């Protein structure tokens, strides 16, 4: 059974069919790419999967259970985490706090527990802080832990978004153009990081990316979409030579 499955997922914004009858599946542990020209509907697919929008029709199943129509926080609790194409950090909170937010849903403390602070509160708080610090170390952000997130340079902000998403302990991680605005050296680092995340955290990754080097370099399978519709699915070498894909990209550029 695939981890994530879209069946005829469709969404309409007024007169615009942003995603049309999209069907694909991501296997457990897979590094899966979703590409397409600007405006193809990739971010919208992420929004459908994470519950920001409910599909007009179709099914989205995670771990075999339908999740369409659920609230975003419920979907996060199911084990899907994401980053955003236009960075959405908690700007004035510290780097560490940004990651700590994602452990809130695992907290067993109620409001009273958090005000009166028993033994258990402190133990859990410490545990979650240490987990967050470990994530920051992996992303080499630990020295900036107390800085406000907004003060980070662009590349670090992108990495912090990934760290924060991993803080929810997801089984599926959605990355929306993580290499955007990075130089070749940074993109190369990012590729290695993505692979390492998959191996160390045992997550499946669904990657949207414009940088073909990154996509072709790390993804095991790639789904191509144009104008909200799927046009090709395959391993990188197939996609690279697929005439429909070449046309979609060349026709645009």
């Amino acid at each position, binding site marked *: 059974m695939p981890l994530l499955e879209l069946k005829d997922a469709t969404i309409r914004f007024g007169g615009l069919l942003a995603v049309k009858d999209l069907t694909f599946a991501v296997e457990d542990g897979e590094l899966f790419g979703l590409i397409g020209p600007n405006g193809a509907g990739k*971010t919208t697919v992420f*929004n459908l999967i994470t519950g*920001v929008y409910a599909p007009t029709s179709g099914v989205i199943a995670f771990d075999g259970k339908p999740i369409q129509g659920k609230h975003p926080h419920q979907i996060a609790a199911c084990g899907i985490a994401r980053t*955003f194409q236009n960075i959405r950090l908690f700007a004035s909170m510290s780097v560490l706090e940004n990651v700590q937010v994602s452990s809130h849903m695992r907290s067993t403390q109620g409001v009273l527990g958090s005000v009166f602070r028993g033994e258990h509160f402190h133990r859990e708080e410490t545990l979650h802080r240490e987990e967050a610090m470990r994530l920051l170390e992996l992303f080499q952000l630990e020295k900036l832990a107390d800085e406000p997130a907004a003060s980070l340079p662009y590349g670090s902000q992108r990495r912090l978004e990934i760290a924060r998403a991993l803080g929810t302990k997801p089984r599926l991680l959605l990355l929306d153009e993580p290499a955007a605005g990075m130089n070749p050296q940074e993109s190369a680092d990012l590729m290695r990081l993505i692979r390492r995340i998959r191996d160390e955290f045992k997550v499946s990754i669904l990657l949207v990316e414009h940088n073909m080097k990154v996509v072709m370099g790390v993804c095991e399978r790639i789904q191509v979409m144009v104008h909200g519709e799927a046009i090709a699915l395959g391993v990188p070498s197939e996609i690279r030579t697929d005439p429909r894909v070449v046309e979609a990209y060349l026709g645009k550029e």
Partner: protein
Amino acid sequence: MESFLQQLINGISLGSIYALVALGYTMVYGVLRLINFAHGDVYMLGAYFGYYLSRLVQGRTPSHLLDAAVVMILSMIGCALIGVIMERFAYRPVRRASRLTLLIIAIGVSLLIENASQLIFGANPRFFPQLIPETHIHMGNLMLTNQQVIVLVTALALMILLNLFIYRSRTGKAMRAVSYNLDAAKLMGIDTDRIISLTFALGSALAAAGGILVSINIPGIDPLMGVMTGLKAFVAAVLGGIGNIFGAVLGGLILGLAEVMVAGYGSSTYRDAIAFLILIAILLFKPSGLLGKGQVEKV
């Protein structure tokens, strides 16, 4: 049935005042996304300017109607100036600040005008002079005063003029562009500062007209008269869909009618609550107001 018709006319009359004031709220909100809490106080200033001007003007022109017209136009010009000054010194320095900052400054400006007015005009109510002697017009069992007719006709005329200005003139077009997207309008070469000043001037002039029209009907004026009316006019603007000109008029009329009906057929103590009840009911079902467009945040 007659009494219902009578109430209907009273309601529309009150509603058209709310609409005039609501227009200012909606226009300013449109260009600056600011709830200008001081707008109700400009309406009060309009009434006071009218009060002092009447003593100068009354009897100096050939007819009562002309007296009233001169008073009203001068008072509208005075308030337009106040509006421009208010924008220039209180709101322009913080145009890029958070919405909260803007809102608190608006509250501050409102308090300033109210307190300065209490000091200058005195806290006690004044009696607005009768610019136009009252005559009664009978239509069957229905009784109208000439003043009611004048209020209605003037309010209607002002709204039509505003509409023509906004939808037909070049400047009106620029104003709509600014309210659609301030930064884009600037890039297109529109002098946005001038347009924003103009918006305040227009809105304030309409509020002044509202203040005078109200005083023609109900002559007691005091420095705090703008507080409740301002609040209700704002509710009218939100009700209709803030930023939307027709919405403000629609909201004003609904509010005026509802209030008069509640006071007439229910308990008058609930009169002040009805505005908010309607508002909440509508916002819960249509959060952007009756004619407002919903805005979905793009992710």
